[in-house]
């Protein structure tokens, strides 16, 4: 990520900007060819866009998780709880209370941040395994609260339906390409903020804490403050992803935010190489799309169910054994 305009970055930027057009363009080509009985295995532009949007959400989450896991070196096994908090806060505000998306989203982010700090406060002393276990337990508690407290969501099993699409100046942003640009803007914002943080005093303090907490403290770094900041930023990004996905999915339910989702996001960060924003995004892009390809019924027969998690597990084991620094070339 250099601030230079090289032909490569310009091409990439143009591709990102005009991706929906490209997708619909391929649709037209496929339509045209089908008149001559030539059929390509193209699943359709709208479907592809939906997958891309979902992969972008994973990128957002992976970048957020990377702040705690990669920068401060603490294993967070319950990141999905902020995703859940963001999703349900925005969802309940919009679907049940009729609040506008543009107010609900910042509130969701705020709510996630508060819980990030609340969860962080008692865990500041903890390291390694104990931190991982507390984060895991915390996420499971939230999962159960949303599932059991029916008054909160209004339906059993956290089924929240009919979340409206955001509107602005009379335009309803419900199309897939709307959502595409929407998530790209959010993602760019998040990457910009994270990148600036990483290359500032704050980022250096985080890495110092990761390398040696005691040494960092003796050098005058306020460990508790910087750790809390990392928890807050990370939680805010998770909640942002949740707020977006709530309106994108229209209906959400608890199984969508289970423990394995946390593990999936962790897997993305590990695959790309912990501590690198670009790594987290590459990991999310690979596993996000791989997860789509490996969905039951496509390549893997239905009776095997979610066998993609088997493959994710193997990826984790092999990476830790042979390339603990992830796919990026930087050695951990």
């Amino acid at each position: 990520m250099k601030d230079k305009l090289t032909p490569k970055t310009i091409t990439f930027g143009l591709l990102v900007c005009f991706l929906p057009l490209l997708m619909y363009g391929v649709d037209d080509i496929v339509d045209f060819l089908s008149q001559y009985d030539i059929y390509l295995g193209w699943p359709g532009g709208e479907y592809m866009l939906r997958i891309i949007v979902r992969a972008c959400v994973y990128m957002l989450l992976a970048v957020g998780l990377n702040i705690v896991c990669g920068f401060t070196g603490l294993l967070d096994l319950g990141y999905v709880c902020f995703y859940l908090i963001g999703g349900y806060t925005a969802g309940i505000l919009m679907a049940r209370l009729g609040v506008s998306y543009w107010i609900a989203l910042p509130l969701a982010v705020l709510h996630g941040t508060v819980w990030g700090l609340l969860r962080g406060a008692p865990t500041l002393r903890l390291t390694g395994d104990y931190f991982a276990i507390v984060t895991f337990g915390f996420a499971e508690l939230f999962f159960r609260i949303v599932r059991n407290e029916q008054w909160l969501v209004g339906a059993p099993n956290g089924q929240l339906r009919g979340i409206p699409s955001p509107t602005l100046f009379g335009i309803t942003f419900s199309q897939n390409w709307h959502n595409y640009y929407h998530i790209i803007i959010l993602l760019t914002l998040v990457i910009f903020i994270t990148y600036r943080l990483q290359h500032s005093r704050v980022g250096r303090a985080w890495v110092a804490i990761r390398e040696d907490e005691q040494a960092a403290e003796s050098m005058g770094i306020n460990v508790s403050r910087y750790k809390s900041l990392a928890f807050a930023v990370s939680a805010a990004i998770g909640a942002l992803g949740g707020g977006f996905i709530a309106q994108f999915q229209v209906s959400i339910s608890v199984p969508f935010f289970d423990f394995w989702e946390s593990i999936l996001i962790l897997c993305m960060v590990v695959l790309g190489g912990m501590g690198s924003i670009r790594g987290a995004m590459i990991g999310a892009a690979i596993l996000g799309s791989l997860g789509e390809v490996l969905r039951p019924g496509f390549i893997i027969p239905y009776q095997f169910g979610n066998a993609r998690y088997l493959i994710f597990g193997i990826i984790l084991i092999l990476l830790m054994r042979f390339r603990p620094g992830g796919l990026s070339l930087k050695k951990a």
Partner: protein
Amino acid sequence: MAQLLEQFINGLVLGGIYALIAVGYTMVYGIIQLINFAHGEIFMFGAYLALMLVTVFNIPFWIAVPASMLLCAMLGMLIDLVAYRPLRDAPRLSALITAIGISLVLQNLARMIWSARPQLFPTETLPAFLISEVNMQTGEILNAIPLPGGGILPYRDVSILLLAVVLMIALNRLIYLTKIGKAMRACAQNRVASNLMGIKTNQVIAVTFAIGSALGAVAGIMVGLSENITPTMGYYKGVAAFAAAVLGGIGNITGAMLGGIIIGLAEVFGAGYISSGYRLAIAYIIMIAVIVIRPSGLFGKSTANRA
């Protein structure tokens, strides 16, 4: 009152099962400081392997139990050999992530082999005394002890508790009276120094995995006697058992046994008197509270470096 007594016994039985699993977590943690996430999955494999032995291979239940223990012990040693041993000197985070990976692989493997459908041991494969019933017409009680107040205590629960206690005592004797037990205690104190003293640490660790996994397998079969066997049971019960290990002070075997009983009782009473939807949440809350307030556990010595 009768309900209270029955709940208490249920809690004890569940606690005994948790204690058996928790011992596996705590022994491994004591020696290599690794939360063996895959232990819950080994426990689940124990139940499935025994089920497969009795249904597919028509092996009597009495032989299926030790056979399943043996197979799980081998599985535990295999996991250690393939996944954990190469990472012995790597950062602890790498080993922990590997453990999660193993857990994912085993759980989904079980789903592929045995399907996600919940299963029970077919009654005809079980020894007769494990199946208790009350004849409604005559009021005759089969294979159970009547309790004051109208409840019954099935022989199944009695045998689970007895077996759990016997295994615990056997483990305790093994650790404090035998040579391998001494080696395990030495490794838990200081692995490098033990190695220098001529203890084959890798063998000791393999034995630790084998014992923990065999006990986990027994616990899995015990659960299978009264509840459905599912691929996710290892995950749910595993976390509760881990909470028990944390409560007792991780690395402390006696603590894990007592922690198991406490978690079992808390879960049953919580589900009975608070809300059944929060059944597992109670174990999580206890676990978080212990880690945050007293990381060395109820019975552990406080060590500076672990918290």
